[in-house]
């Protein structure tokens, strides 16, 4: 931390840019596969192609929250600014991917189930995850003292991550109490090989893109920190 002020470390920027480029290229490949290569699903038709965007986004959204919780715990333990920067970078990426899930899910649902919103457990869980992310940022930006905001946000991140599995179990249980006439056949064993491959590319593309963007965001946070130090030596 005792560098000459004005010179922020550059490592995360290069790696972030490289990863983001690879991720972006993979997303392009994914889009080509989704639109031109993968066969149309027999029962649901064209709308099922949202699946290749929707499911990998959900994976990244939840994985990101794991990263947030881990970095938050490390921050509270070691009080190293860098963990907080990593946590907030992951949280921003996670919020974006959670939003993608919440937009793509209902669009698909409208065609597949006939309603934009049903209280399907995974959809419900994702909505609650979105609100926990929201709380993370609200707390962070609502304190006079930035350091206090970072601590509060870390607490939200940790408790949220511990609670998410329990929320999931409870909404599943709630649904089993209230059977609905909707059968979601997302990932049965009947997945065609080409569909599996497309989905795999989706997972890879979004995961790499997420980490690339997270590193770039981390770099921005670092620069902001150094700029603040230059302003108030």
């Amino acid at each position, binding site marked *: 931390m005792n560098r000459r002020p004005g010179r922020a470390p550059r490592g995360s920027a290069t790696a972030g840019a490289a990863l983001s480029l690879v991720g972006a290229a993979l997303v392009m490949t994914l889009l080509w596969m989704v639109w031109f290569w993968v066969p149309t699903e027999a029962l649901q038709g064209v709308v099922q192609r949202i699946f290749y965007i929707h499911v990998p986004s959900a994976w990244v959204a939840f994985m990101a929250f794991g990263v947030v919780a881990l970095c938050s715990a490390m921050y509270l333990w070691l009080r190293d600014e860098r963990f907080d920067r990593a946590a907030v970078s992951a949280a921003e990426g996670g919020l974006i991917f959670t939003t993608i899930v919440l937009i793509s899910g209902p669009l698909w649902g409208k065609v597949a189930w006939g309603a934009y919103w049903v209280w399907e457990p995974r959809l419900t869980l994702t909505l609650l995850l979105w609100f926990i992310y*929201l*709380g993370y940022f609200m707390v962070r930006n609502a*304190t006079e003292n930035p350091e206090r905001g970072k601590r509060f946000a870390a*607490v939200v991140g940790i408790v*949220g991550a511990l609670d998410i599995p*329990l929320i999931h179990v*409870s*909404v599943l249980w709630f649904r089993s109490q209230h059977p609905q006439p909707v059968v979601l056949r997302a990932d049965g064993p009947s997945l065609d090989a080409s569909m599996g491959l497309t989905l795999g590319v989706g997972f890879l593309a979004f995961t790499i893109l997420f980490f690339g963007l997270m590193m770039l965001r981390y770099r921005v946070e670092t620069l902001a920190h150094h700029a603040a130090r230059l302003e108030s030596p």
Partner: protein
Amino acid sequence: MSAWGRGVLAVARKDLVQEFRTFQRLATMGAFTVLVGVLFSFSFDPAAVRAQDVAGGLIWMTLVFAGVMGVGRTFALEAEDAAFQGVLLSPVPRDAIYLGKVIANVVIVSITVLLIVLAFGLFFQLDYGAHPIALALTLFSGVVGFVALATLFGAVSAGTRLGESLLPVLLFPLVVPMVVYGAGATHRLLLGRPLVEVEGNIRILGAFAIGAVAVGAVLFRHVVED
């Protein structure tokens, strides 16, 4: 008794004495509870919906709203005259302060829940006869879990510019499991279903309560640092 245990009891006693001298929180929560019951009675058509079918949900939603009101006030009251700074300067460890506050809030919210149960029983002719012990256990374990999280995030909210208005935003997504299992169990007990059907729920609520208190006790020191 250890110094730590005495610290817990001292904080709990301080909060309870403060409450029972003024009744500020209990009075507002109590009035709120009864008025919610009155408004609910006008909000659905008794000819179309039986009260027993919705009472479980009503009881838990009222618990959550009254609880947010009551627990949110805890730290706001102490923010006046920097009283909480005095508590932090005392030689009581942070986790003992947290547990003391949780105990006091559990007592206060439990009294409110008792009022909810009585008032709603009166208003909607609910039958608590079959398994009163199971119902009490369900509500009590729910209250402990709720208060544990509400106390932690009440301290967080009090430390922000938004104050108590932030508490529901932080708390409500996290108490979903409690409402699901609590309202589910209460609903069935009111319908006179056998105990076997709610045992699992009460166990989960108990586990949730223990987990929430443990997590709160560990994290509280990071919230009230400065």
